[in-house]
């Protein structure tokens, strides 16, 4: 992946994650959680804006963050499939967030030390936020895993459902500013420790869907974009 493709990919991860988390607003299990989910959505959106703005500059075709967010079709998005999956119940959302954060923490940490100054600055800012996301999601995975019988069952189902989608995150790419395959060990260590404490079983790896980084998505993304882009596209060239 070129620097542009890489920046776009992790920017799209953050943008689509923010869009999904935003759907929880006014629907969370507790008021405190509503605030927390909005907070995490805002962090992801903030990182997305920095990354998409920089991707536009790297591309040099005059596209800004909004052009990239609102005027690309699903085949042009480079986010991983994990983030575009529907929210499901609160357990599925926490499984998605936990795996995403367990990937983003080492990713942004590595990025903070990379040669590209702009990416390093984003990494330095976002890794602190991701550490909080990881903390928050891990706590819920433990609470739900080791809570009631029902919550244990739901959390295990959620982990099983989402697990296949994590492998795509670590496809090797030696040319990228950070090679994703170097983040896997860190991810595995985090995940194992939390799942153990949550009395949950780490699924066997079998099916490993992918394609997001090449613009081959699930059926869900096009609907997500239709909603996200509808107003912007209805008024071409307007300022907001």
């Amino acid at each position, binding site marked *: 992946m070129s620097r542009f493709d890489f920046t776009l990919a992790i920017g799209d991860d953050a943008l689509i994650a923010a869009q999904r988390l935003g759907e929880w607003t006014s629907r969370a299990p507790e008021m405190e*959680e509503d605030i927390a989910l909005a907070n995490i959505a805002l962090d992801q959106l903030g990182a997305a804006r920095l990354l998409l703005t920089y991707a536009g500059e790297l591309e040099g075709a005059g596209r800004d963050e909004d052009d990239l967010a609102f005027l690309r079709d699903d085949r042009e998005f480079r986010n991983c499939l994990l983030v575009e999956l529907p929210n499901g119940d609160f357990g599925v959302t926490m499984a998605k967030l936990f795996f995403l954060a367990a990937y983003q923490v080492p990713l942004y940490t590595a990025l903070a030390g990379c040669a590209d100054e702009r990416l390093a600055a984003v990494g330095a800012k976002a890794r602190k936020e991701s550490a909080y996301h990881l903390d928050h999601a891990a706590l819920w995975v433990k609470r739900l895993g080791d809570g009631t019988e029902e*919550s244990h069952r739901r959390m295990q189902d959620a982990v099983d459902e989402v697990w296949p989608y994590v492998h795509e995150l670590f496809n090797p790419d030696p040319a990228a500013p950070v090679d994703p395959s170097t983040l896997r060990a860190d991810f595995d260590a985090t995940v194992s420790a939390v799942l153990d404490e949550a009395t949950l079983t780490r699924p066997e790896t079998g099916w490993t869907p992918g394609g997001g980084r090449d613009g081959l998505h699930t059926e869900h993304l096009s609907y997500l974009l239709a909603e996200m882009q509808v107003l912007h596209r209805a008024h071409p060239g307007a300022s907001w």
Partner: protein
Amino acid sequence: MLLHPLVSIVPSCNTSYMYGNDFAPPEDAPGGGLLGEVEAAEAALREAAARARRGGPAPDEDVEAYFADVIDADQKIEPRDWMPEAYRRTLIRQIAQHAHSEIIGMQPEGNWISRAPSLKRKAILLAKVQDEAGHGLYLYAAAETLGISRDELVDLLLDGRQKYSSIFNYPTLTWADVGAIGWLVDGAAIVNQVPLCRCSYGPYARAMIRVCKEESFHQRQGYEILHTLAHGTEAQKAMAQDAVDRWWYPSLAMFGPPDGDSTHSAQSMAWKIKRFSNDELRQRFVDMCVGQAEVLGLTLPDPDLRWNDERQAYDYTQPDYDELMRVIKGNGPCNRERMAHRRKAHADGAWVREAAAAYAAKRSDRKEPVAA
């Protein structure tokens, strides 16, 4: 029930830092004069606290006389103080209704988070709706000082035994409605709430100071949305005017029935919970909006709106109070949806709250031997 520590996530007005300095509002834009009043109320609160207070009635003193003294002296009643049962009930009803309004109010604006037309607008709106959740939380906390739990209050809302502001039973049909809510609805809320910063009940007054400061940012962001639309394409301008046309009269109705018909007013005024009448506040809101609408380049939908030199105020058309009563009784455009949404969120989250409680109980069981 607090599910997890909030230290890192309680917002302190998110919209203020998002707002930045990229928009210089005209002099009579929202936020100026009223924010000054909030600060004055805060200073008065500190002065009242500093003035020598007896710290409670003497052993042989009549508690009712003590209560009356505190009210007369413009000092604050605190949770530890004796208070008339009706005062307590009035406050619980009012603070809870306000808290419920913040929580239900997340829905109409949250409706546009997924479709916000730019990433910047999406971030500001997310932060705004998050602020409302925060306001709900600390208003429930203020109500809890009166001896009722948040869970009880939430049940009262879900059972329909307590109300929320009727304004949130109107739909947000276009993006401009997000702007109109900020400018008009938050504007009306601020006019209503600024006097509450001087309310005789300390915890409520302190909560309102914080809420009002944040609301003034919300109002500015709504105003800015409308300003951008009103200076944009023809379609955007039409969208902005349509939103103002639909939200103007419901916003005027937010101040409640006309003074003659208001059931709770006189006693609340005597107790210094309420400081101005519904009609006084409504007039103040109208007078504030006229100049702002001119700057926006939008028309308030009232052909009879005109300056009255004698009264030094604008004459205006009253909102349809029959409509207000219909909406209060449950027959506004969105009453059923708003309640169904809240009930569903509450029901869907039940297994999560149970799990959190079970997990916490297991933790404290494990810790007990250490503590013993």
